[in-house]
């Protein structure tokens, strides 16, 4: 850097002439405005604000001016440089925005490309259906009880008022284990879980028992040797058939929607007396029996769907399970989970539940 120049008249120094400074400033501003992209702007920045730019050179000369001239020249050049820097900054921002916009356009992908790199999993609707049912009852303060699938004959039959010569034993085609005099069966219903609950707990008892059960049925679209039931048992003081109706109406509404309730028809089960069959208002035609002018397919035009069996717990069952039948009454009900899901979801063939085809199961996701 050169030292102060004291020899000449400041007015005579060309770069510091006002018109020269303005020209340099205007040239810079024009170049900035003309810069088409960030690279050009970078070059403009070097040309017009770099060490060798006219304004930088002029600035350097200020120190050489006589003191009386420095102030004016400094102001003039400072203003010119300020204007240039401001323009540079603005142009930089504009060009950066333009650049980013272009980048984003260039990075555009086809978002419709497949993304199924890892397949989707799912839980079985029988599992999630049983959970849905359990949750409806747990929300009412009930509990979920479970038991073994290979069960003692006494618990599956005798304790439930199905004595060895009870005609109802022929109604249930039972798988027996070998040798048959070991008195073990594949449970034909989840009722032995009810018996176990009464044997192990004191009332009040409010339990639902979902689980897998077995009958020696041939396997077809509506029958399976392996299927699933949910049974419920309430034992308390003052329990009535009206409580049974209330509970099943609530269950039906939760499972199938408000307005879907139940009706009872007299029936016979050894473990309940009085006994009833439960029908459900068809949730497709909502009891009309007719849908779009044709008989409803779900209920075959009846307006009702057979749902399960129920009744007041037979005092003989209470006695066998150690419940004081003078003090307590109870109700019990049972229905097929498979069947319930079949009409809830319009599944035509029961076998779809047991084939394990992932296309069937994944349709239901992880919750029902």
């Amino acid at each position, binding site marked *: 850097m050169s030292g102060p120049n004291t020899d000449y008249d400041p007015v005579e120094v060309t770069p510091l002439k006002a018109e020269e400074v303005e020209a340099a400033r205007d040239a810079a501003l024009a170049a900035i405005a003309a810069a088409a992209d960030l690279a050009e702007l970078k070059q403009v920045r070097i040309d017009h604000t770099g060490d060798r730019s006219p304004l930088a050179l002029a600035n350097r000369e200020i120190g050489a001016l006589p003191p009386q001239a420095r102030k004016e020249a400094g102001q003039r050049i400072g203003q010119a440089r300020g204007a240039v820097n401001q323009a540079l900054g603005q142009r930089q921002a504009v060009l950066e925005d333009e650049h980013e916009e272009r980048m984003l356009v260039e990075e555009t992908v086809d978002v419709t490309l497949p993304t199924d790199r*890892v397949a*989707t*999993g*799912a*839980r*079985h609707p029988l*599992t999630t259906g049983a959970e849905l049912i359990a949750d409806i009852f*747990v929300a009412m303060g*009930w*509990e*979920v009880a479970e038991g*073994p*699938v*290979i*069960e*003692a*004959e*006494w*618990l599956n039959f005798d*304790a439930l008022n199905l*004595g060895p010569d009870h005609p109802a034993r022929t109604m249930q085609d039972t*798988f027996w*284990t*070998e040798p*048959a005099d*070991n*008195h*073990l069966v594949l449970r034909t219903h989840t009722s032995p879980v009810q018996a176990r609950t009464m*044997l192990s707990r004191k009332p*009040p008892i*409010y339990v639902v028992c979902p689980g897998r059960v077995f009958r020696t049925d*041939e*396997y077809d679209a509506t029958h399976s*040797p*392996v299927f699933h039931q949910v049974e419920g048992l309430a034992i308390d003081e003052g329990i*009535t*058939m*009206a409580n049974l*109706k*209330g509970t099943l*109406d*609530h269950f039906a509404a939760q499972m199938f929607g408000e307005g879907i*309730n139940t*009706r009872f*028809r*007299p*029936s*016979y089960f050894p473990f309940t*007396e009085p006994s009833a069959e439960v029908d459900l208002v068809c949730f497709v035609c909502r009891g009309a029996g007719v849908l779009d002018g044709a008989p409803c397919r779900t209920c075959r035009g009846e307006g009702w769907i057979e749902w399960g069996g129920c009744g*007041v717990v037979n005092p003989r069952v209470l*006695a*066998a*399970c150690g419940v004081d039948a003078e003090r307590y009454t109870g109700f019990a009900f049972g229905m097929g989970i498979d069947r319930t899901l079949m009409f809830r979801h319009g599944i035509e063939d029961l076998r779809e*539940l*047991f*084939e*394990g*085809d*992932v296309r069937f199961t994944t349709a239901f996701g*992880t919750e029902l």
Partner: protein
Amino acid sequence: MKAPVSWIREYVDLPDGVSTEDLTARLTALGLKLEAIEKPADQITGPLVVGRVLTMDPEPQKNGKTINWCTVDVGDANGTGEPQGIVCGAHNFKPGDLIVAVLPGGVLPGNFEISARKTYGHLSAGMICSARELGLGEDHDGIIVLPEGAGEPGDSAFPVLGLDDEVIEFEINPDRAYALSLRGVAREAALAYDAPYRDPAERSVPEPNGAGYPVEIDDPAGCPVFVVRRVTGFDPTAASPDWMVRRITQAGMRPISLAVDVTNYVMLEIGRPIHGYDAAKLQGTIRVRRAHEGERMTTLDGAQRTLSVEDLVVTDDSGIIGLGGVMGGETTEMSATTTDILVEAAHWDATSMFRTGKRHKITSEAGKRNERGVDPVVTQAAADRVVELLTTYGGGTADAGVTVVGTPPRQAPITISYDLPARVTGMEIDAATTVTNLEAVGCVLVKEDSTVTATPPPWRPDLTDPFDLVEEVARIVGYDQVPSVLPREAAGRGLTREQRLRRRIGRTLAGAGCVEVISFPFVGEATFDALGLPADDVRRTTVRLANPLSSEEPSYTTTLLPGLLKAAARNIGRGAPGVALFETGTVAFPVDAGPAPIYGVDWRPSDAELAKLFEALPVQPLHLAVVLAGERERSGWWGEGRAAGWADAIALVRRLGAELGVTVEVAATQLMPWHPGRCAEVRIGEVLLGQAGELHPKVCQELGLPPRSAAVEIDLDQLMRLARDVVPGPEFSTYPVAKEDVALVVEDAVTAAAVEEALREGAGDLLESVRLFDVFTGAQVGEGHKSLAFALRFRAPDRTLTVEETAAARDAAVALAAERTGAVQR
């Protein structure tokens, strides 16, 4: 039970205009469940008329058949009054017979349209009908020949055949055996409409006397009443009257002969099964006793039967002549020449009937009624009705002798308080309603101030308990009157720990891309052979079923893999590029604790007795199995996919462990059906959970699975038992991390886990984590060796580590690995 509406109406005066639909709706509401309504008339469109055969010319055909070219007088039904020409293939008729003809334009069941058509060289203008063609039964032996006087040629055949009558089929529950008769169904119909009822069993019967056929009962408990009547001079060729044939057919039974039809008819009418003997074949006194063990007899179905001491038999001097109440014997069976008939109406112990029927595998209409319980009081009426019908239509005479041995058992009275029905049902049922309804079902009442004692009618042996009476009262009030009231709120404890854990496990696996399946738990030897299980494998010891659906799969499974692998192969077979399936379910292992006891039911077994019962059950742990076959990650625009392998299987178990807060340890093991070099046993501490790894190539091939398919099977009960319930909040340092990578060369046989464990222990407290990030083999590390590269991360809780501290910890780690595993740092 099939009941023609006209027959029901014979005993009950139903209000005018009651439709069959209304009747069945009301009977269903009372507990007689509608199965179906048969309306034969709906299936047939006229003209269906009575015709008289004028001529019939047999014409042999080239195909060996002979057809009859007939002319039939159909009155004016054909519009001309001229005889109708009809070709008929049946031969059971002759000129002059009255028949049923459907004329062109008519439609028979199955939408079978009749038109005049050329056949066998004639224009056949209509068809002479058989019972089956009209949907009136299975009888296709020939055409229907109507009895003389059934109608005039040209009359509509609908009323003649009873086609206008509707038949209701009921599903009768075991407690309503009385409804297995028209007597019972009509009684319920009367109840439904509060209509007048005439009991067909109510008839005056001749007094018992000593002149009848001699009968002795050795076992009054098994056979409390035995009534015998005799008809002589019966014409065995006499035909059953048309109305009787029709009703028997409508009720779903086959007409056979007058003598047999009459016994069946009376059974349908009154509900009491009747047996008829050829009296000429009887020798000496009839005696009822229990059989001797091993005694033999031939029942009238021709079957040789070996009897047990529990079977009730009817004998005469010749030996056994009947399996009492279940089936008659061959030696005294009525035949086409029987002229003397001995009519038996006996009451039998229902339990004995049930056991005998079950033991000899005999199901019959008679057995069905006897084993459920028949009115014991109607034996005389039933026998008398049979005698009446036999003599009316078969021309014989009734013997004056009337044998009645024994007395019908009495129903025990039941006492209830008047408000019991209201208390049990929650319905508004007052004392008056209780009384009215009990009387309506036939109970005889003794009324006290607060209780009523009801003696059930003899046709209701099912009424034994107070709650049975509640049901009777309630069903007449109507179940539609039961109010809907939620029980009081219970203080439940929510789901159990295991129930919540199971949901978590299912969601975790679904989140890892696995799809749950539910398969049948039945397996056989071939199943285990396909898995390559050795002969002594514990999984081959199964709980066997006495009555499996398939003899190929007679056992309850000990492993979930068979069902799961089958499902995987099915998916692959259906074109899935890859499949990940899981199943949770119980498996069963037999125990040798003797038979499960059968206790009484009058009171609760003791805790010790219950414990003995529980011990007799097979061990039934909950298992989880997973199979991974084919693509685990799919190929796509992102690049190549990845096939499932052993590591994916083990990763799933580790992921479950992480989900449940436990560390799963892995060690090499060998177990079929896994690949011997690619199978891990998975443990939590000392507890073995199960196995995971690649399946044996032979198993994949055998079961149609892609090569390198992988599988897991673990005991879920154990995993859930060890799951962490309350996880303490972790503490961690926020000082900078110091990273050190080390590459260690070890012999091939040294496991990564062993090296890692040594590094972990040697590095000391400053070590935050160690992770194997590369395995390298090649010339640089030497034959039989491998290089394992680990990333070590160090961090102190209270300060930034110095380079020297980190290096010292790393060196200590490497030193211990060298000492323990022979590792050499590269």
